[in-house]
Structures are given as C-alpha cells and as structure tokens.
C-alpha cells in the first residue's frame, strides 16, 4: 500500500514518501514484491529471511534510529538534487493549478495582468516575484540536461559532478536573470 502511494505520485512527493516510510514501518515489510519470486535461489531465500528477522527484531527491541537529516552535512550533491526535486514539485503543482483556476475564473489572462499592474506594487516585489517564477523552470531544465548525461553514464566522477553542479547553478541563475531583466 505504501508502494502504491509512491507509485501514484512518482518522483514528486518527498513528503508522501517519508510518510510512506513511516507507514511501511507499521505494516509487515512486504519484501516479496520483487519480480522473480518464483525462481529464487537458496541464497536469496536465506537473505530475505534474514531481512524479515532484522525488521522484527529491531521493532520488538524498540531500538532508536540514528539521526539523519538533522546531522548530515548539506553537500552540493544532495542540495542540488533537493533543488531539482523541489522545483519539479513546485511546477507540477502550480502550473495545472493556475491553469485550472484561470480556466474557471471570468475574464481572460491579460485582464489579470492589468489587475496586477493596477495594484501599483513596489517594483522590487514584482522583480522578486519574477525571479521566483523564472528560477524553477530554468534550474530544472538545465539540471535536467545534467541528469540526461548521467543516464548515459557520462560525467559521474566526483570532480565532474561538482564542476557540472556549480556550472548548472550559475547558468540557471544567469538565465533567470536574463529572463527577468531582458524580457
């Protein structure tokens, strides 16, 4: 069931995945969801039995889980990956929501732009809002190219990973600034 929650949301839902992880701790661990259950060797059978015993024993003994998120160093690798996920979720949620809302509301898109213009907001707020809107698509797209390279197993060594990471972040900020100030 936890697996189904994860399946329906795909990559997008870090929050649901952590809840699903909690849920899966409450239920017995279903290790037999793998594809080749009918042809398991003796070694694999022993291994899966050991895994089940591990979860039973640790839950029974109520051992604490060692700290993870709050103590682990934020690395460029994990922070850029988190940014990719966050921008992905942000866009996956807001784009359909805004589109559906505009579809439902009266008047067309340009009347809402006029409405925002008439509010006479501080231009700094408008610029900041533009940055917030432009950054996700720029970063996610450029980091997406980095991910595509990884899918071909290109650029996996640590030095290239870091260099490409800095490059992607710098380029994304540059392109965002370009969109905000030049368009």
């Amino acid at each position, binding site marked *: 069931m936890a697996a189904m929650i994860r399946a329906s949301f795909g990559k997008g839902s870090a929050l649901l995945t952590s809840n699903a992880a909690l849920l899966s701790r409450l239920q017995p661990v279903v290790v037999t969801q*793998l594809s080749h259950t*009918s042809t398991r060797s003796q070694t694999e059978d022993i291994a*899966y039995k050991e*895994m089940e015993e591990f979860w039973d024993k640790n839950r029974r003994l109520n*051992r604490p889980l*060692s700290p993870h998120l709050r103590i*682990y160093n934020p*690395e460029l690798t994990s922070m850029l990956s988190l940014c990719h996920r966050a921008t992905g979720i942000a866009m996956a949620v807001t784009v359909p929501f805004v589109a559906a809302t505009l579809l439902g509301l009266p008047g067309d898109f340009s009347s809402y732009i006029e409405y925002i213009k008439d509010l006479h907001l501080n231009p700094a707020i408008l610029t900041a809002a533009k940055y917030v809107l432009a950054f996700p698509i720029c970063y996610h797209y450029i980091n997406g190219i980095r991910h595509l390279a*990884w899918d071909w197993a290109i650029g996996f*060594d640590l030095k290239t990973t870091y260099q490409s990471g800095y490059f992607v972040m710098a380029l994304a900020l540059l392109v965002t600034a370009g969109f905000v100030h030049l368009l």
Partner: protein
Amino acid sequence: MQTRCAQTSAATAPEPARMKKFAVYRWDPEKPGDKPKMQTYEVDLNTCGPMVLDALIKIKNEMDPTLTFRRSCREGICGSCSMNIGGSNTLACLCKIDDNLGKATKIYPLPHMYVIKDLVPDMSNFYAQYRSIEPYLKKKDGSDKNIGDKQYLQTTGDRAKLDGLYECILCACCSTSCPSYWWNSDKYLGPAVLMQAYRWMVDSRDDYTSERLFQMEDRFSVYRCHTIMNCTKTCPKGLNPGLAIGEIKKMLAKYNSKEAKQLAQA
C-alpha cells in the same frame, strides 16, 4: 655533560595542552528509559594520535570505558569503524582530527540505522542485502563441480573492468549517506550492494549476467536511485558507486529482458 643536560631538559619542557572537544552520541540499551544524548569529552591532542579513532580509543582507555564502537585494522581496510564524523560518513581511522580547538567534533553513528549501543549500528539488513545479490562466481558450463581443476582465464582488459569495484570494503558509508536508502532501506539495495552487483555483472568469468540484471527488474531494487550522488562524495576509499549504478541502469535498458526472463524461469 652540561650541554647534554641542557638538551634533555629542553626536550622535556611541557608543551601547553591542546584540548579538543568531542561530542559523541550515546545510548545505553541496558539503562531502562534511557534516551539518546550527546556526551562531550575533552582530549589533549598532544598526547593523542592524529586520527579520530585514536581519540575514541584514548577516551575509552582513560576517561570512559563504557564508550562503545567498532574497530579492527586501524588502517582503513576492514570497514569496521565507519561512522558519521563532522556531518559526513567516513572511517574513523582515516579521518584526521580537525585541529580547530574552538569547534567540537561531532560523532554520530551511521545515519538512519537502528542503534545497538552508542556508535554501533545494526548492520544485519545491509549484509542480508549483500547476500541477496549472490556475490560469487556462477558458471553455466558445469565447471564449478570441479573447482580448482582449471583456471578461469581473463584478459587484462576484462580484469581492468573490475578496478574501482573490487576494492569496496563494505563499510556502508555510501549506503547510509543516501537519503533514498534512508527512506527505503527495506527494498532499495543501496549504493554499496548495487556496486557489488555490478562488479559481478561485469566480471567476464561470470555466466549469469542476464539473470543478475533480471533480478533488478522491479520498482525498488535499483530504481530508487535518483542520482543524488552523496555516495560518491562520502566514500572513504575514493570509489564511485554512483557510476556503477548508472552503468547498471544503462545495462538494464540495453539487455534482452525477455530472454533473461525465460532463462530465469526455466
């Protein structure tokens, strides 16, 4: 005579003590109702070896014998002393103590693992996952019935493919640095085990490559890897599990899965 006395007395002039704080995660299963907490120890770096393991052993010897941690070779080859030092997973015997006396060094067990005591995590799940990938040579020509009769020949090119894979000491630093493994350690195999699975897939002497790949054909064993790359960053031996997983994914895309399924179910 006087010169020699001057020399020896100069050598024994006491150096000012360089006290370094270590904040260590403690939890005792024998104490009912005990909660995990941090305990701080002060160590004089002038009388301590350069590595964090030296400090831990000094603390255990001289200050607190109840401090519990795993250790063996003290040279970075056994993988026993893997723990989280200063926010990163590494081997305590290879991690130099940070000379900055103003900051305490924080020492935690490997992240998101069940704690047996203090810095000792339960590694049974990790070992069971390693066992599940069958990390040994499997032959189809029946030659394993007469093991030792003939050498299994391998070209230098094929042997070179194993470089960067066979050196893994299974310390679990990489797997426990992976957020994906934190959330899914029951079904996702983790970088260490996957790199070893790849090591056997790519060994020219092994005949079961397709079957090994077919074993990965589900949503969790390999595909929970989202290329976060914390694994490669943290490996204390300088290996690249992220690359190995990338290569597995490439192989999974290219191999003949129908044929493998038939072979596996034959």
